[in-house]
């Protein structure tokens, strides 16, 4: 089984890769983890991970700059319905559009838009640090207790159009989407690769997940 981590120059690629590797090494049947941006390798993936930090538009442009990258992603995720996980901006890109630095179109795989966090003046932006996550029961959140802290860094968040696509939230002080899910397409706003043991559990759950 092949797990592909998409390399389009995202700053957190190394951290994501190392965290997935550490978790994968403990699995009974580990994946072949491949870090690549080559469409032919992506097309053979059984699972995909899309990291992302920085501005929405920059990430999107970086993906589209690589010939055939987006098309291969679409083929694997929408066509073949393979399990997909986006992290931080990699999750926000699933939205229809983002309002960060003007309007920018996303992949449109999950209905909703990425908007600025609205918080009272004494709340620092970016929302940076460890915050509690509340979630709906799902295999992807197995062995995680309600209100567990995860590491967040972001100024914008994904407001899903449908409640059913938002499976986890945090509070700052208003509700912010912490994880999204639509069929085989999953994403976390927080950084599992930086969330210590609970983050590793999130990665384990994704590696063990078989979307139905």
């Amino acid at each position, binding site marked *: 089984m092949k797990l592909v981590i998409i390399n389009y120059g995202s*700053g*957190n690629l*190394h*951290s994501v890769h*190392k*965290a997935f590797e*550490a978790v994968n090494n403990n699995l009974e049947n580990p994946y072949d983890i491949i870090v690549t941006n080559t469409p032919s390798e992506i097309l053979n993936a059984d699972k995909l991970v899309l990291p992302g*930090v*920085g*501005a929405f538009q*920059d990430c999107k442009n970086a993906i589209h700059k690589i010939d055939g990258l987006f098309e291969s992603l679409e083929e694997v995720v929408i066509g073949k319905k393979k399990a997909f996980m986006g992290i931080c*901006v990699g999750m926000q890109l699933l939205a229809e559009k983002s309002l960060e630095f003007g309007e920018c179109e996303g992949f449109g795989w999950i209905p909703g838009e990425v908007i600025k966090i609205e918080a009272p003046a004494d709340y*620092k*932006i*970016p*929302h*940076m*640090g*460890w*915050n*509690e996550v509340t979630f709906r029961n799902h295999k992807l959140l197995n062995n995680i207790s309600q209100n567990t*802290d995860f*590491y967040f*860094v*972001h*100024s914008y968040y994904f407001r899903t159009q449908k409640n059913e696509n938002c499976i986890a939230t945090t*509070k*700052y002080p208003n509700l912010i989407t912490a994880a999204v899910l639509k069929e085989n397409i999953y994403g976390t706003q927080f*950084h599992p*690769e*930086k*969330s*210590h*043991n609970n*983050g*590793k559990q999130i990665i384990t759950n994704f590696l063990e997940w078989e979307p139905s």
Partner: protein
Amino acid sequence: MLKKRIIPCLDVDRGRVVKGVNFVDLIDAGDPVEQAKIYNSEGADELCFLDITASSDDRETLFEVVKKTAENCFIPLTVGGGVRTIDDISRLLHHGADKVSINTAAVENIDLVAKAAKKYGSSTIVIAVDAKKNGDKSWNIFTHGGRKPTDIDALEYCIEVANLGAGEILLTSMDRDGTKIGFDNELLSTVSSSIDIPVIASGGVGNLEHFVEGVLKGGASALLAASIFHFGEYSIKDVKTYLAEQNIAVRI
């Protein structure tokens, strides 16, 4: 609720941990990777490496330390010291740093802040500010590891870099650094109340109460300390337990 972060900082010289008292009198305190692993297991919320290696020939050792740490510690890692160019930032990120802190180079070339934030995202760029009291509610910044004075006002500078896209300010009081008499909470609250981005308190922490004051009086989002942890006076857990007892939200 968002937690107040406790960040142990390791000063690293040619791949070894040191901690200066008032930036001189360095004492060796061990292997950075081993130290980082201990902090990671003790519940540190982030880690910070400050590279004080003078010669650029010895820089490679830092990359190795960063790489090994990132392979073992799955919490955010900030690395600073000697970061001068976009290429320096890029190399640190690719070796596993999550954030890069910039000090002197940002003062000398303010455009670097905006460029770096645009390229890697604000959340990746920490601006480190060494400030020294200059009068009533007035502080000037120092560069070159606290050796070179400037006439730049610390508050104005912090506002400017925040506007340019810095994600966080690591604010060190030169007056307090190494003294163990507590953070300069006046400096912290002056800066923190004037900018939207988080401020990390640094310099002067000597006991558990100082951490509490940094939050309640200084308004800091995160608290950084070095020697208090290295020499085993207090553990990360001691600090967090104490903060929790004072009703300050921390990740336990």
